[in-house]
């Protein structure tokens, strides 16, 4: 679906809430891939978006090992020329990055056009990423 096919000038928004649990990362990945497909991204970009969403979820799971009851919030926003994705979850107050976690973030940076990791407050982390429609 191209922007004009949606028949609207507003941004399309898709929201997904998932348990912070390794079992559901594949669901996040598949949903991301399906949305990117509909938004008209090419195959390589769809794979990039899929992998970036997966790595972001994995990163957040590692920062939140003590609390499997909490939820990811994933929000996909189709802007005029790019897809914006927000992924957030609670973090353990004590968590710190290990080397391996850095690999995931490095991959997201290579796969997406823009990535931002923020801690809105001491108890949560948000990853924001952009991918341009080409």
């Amino acid at each position, binding site marked *: 679906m191209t922007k004009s096919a949606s028949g609207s000038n507003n941004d399309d928004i898709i929201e997904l809430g998932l348990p912070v649990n390794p079992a559901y*990362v594949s669901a996040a990945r598949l949903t991301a891939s399906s949305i990117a497909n509909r938004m008209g991204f090419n195959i390589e970009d769809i794979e990039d978006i899929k992998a970036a969403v997966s790595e972001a979820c994995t990163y957040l799971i590692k920062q939140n090992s003590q609390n499997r009851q909490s939820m990811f919030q994933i929000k996909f926003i189709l802007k005029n020329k790019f897809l914006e994705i927000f992924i957030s979850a609670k973090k353990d107050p004590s968590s710190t990055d290990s080397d*391996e976690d850095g690999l995931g973030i490095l991959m997201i940076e290579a796969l997406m056009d823009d990535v931002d990791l923020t801690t809105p407050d001491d108890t949560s982390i948000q990853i924001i990423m952009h991918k341009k429609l080409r």
Partner: protein
Amino acid sequence: MDFKLNSLYDNTKNIWNITIEGEIDIYNSSLLKEKLNALIQEHKTDLHINCDKLEYIDSTGLGSLVSVLKKVKQYNGNISLCQLKPNVAKVFKITELNKVFVIEGANND
């Protein structure tokens, strides 16, 4: 959305011929490490992994492979991967792990 690993020990060449199918992520990457470690306990040889049907691998899956490679290097062995799909080849490239593993032949279907 899980993965399947098949392995066959080649007696004459003294190598493990392995195929991995499906998707590897944080949910199952520790299982990948366990399965490969079991193989190199049985025969301390090179691992040839056919990735023809490997649809996806994430950073934790790469971490498992690196962990196994460290053990393989201890006996001067190697891990080679062939027939990588474009998206799988890409994650090896962006992490520069294509310089650490032997990557042979692409899969451009």
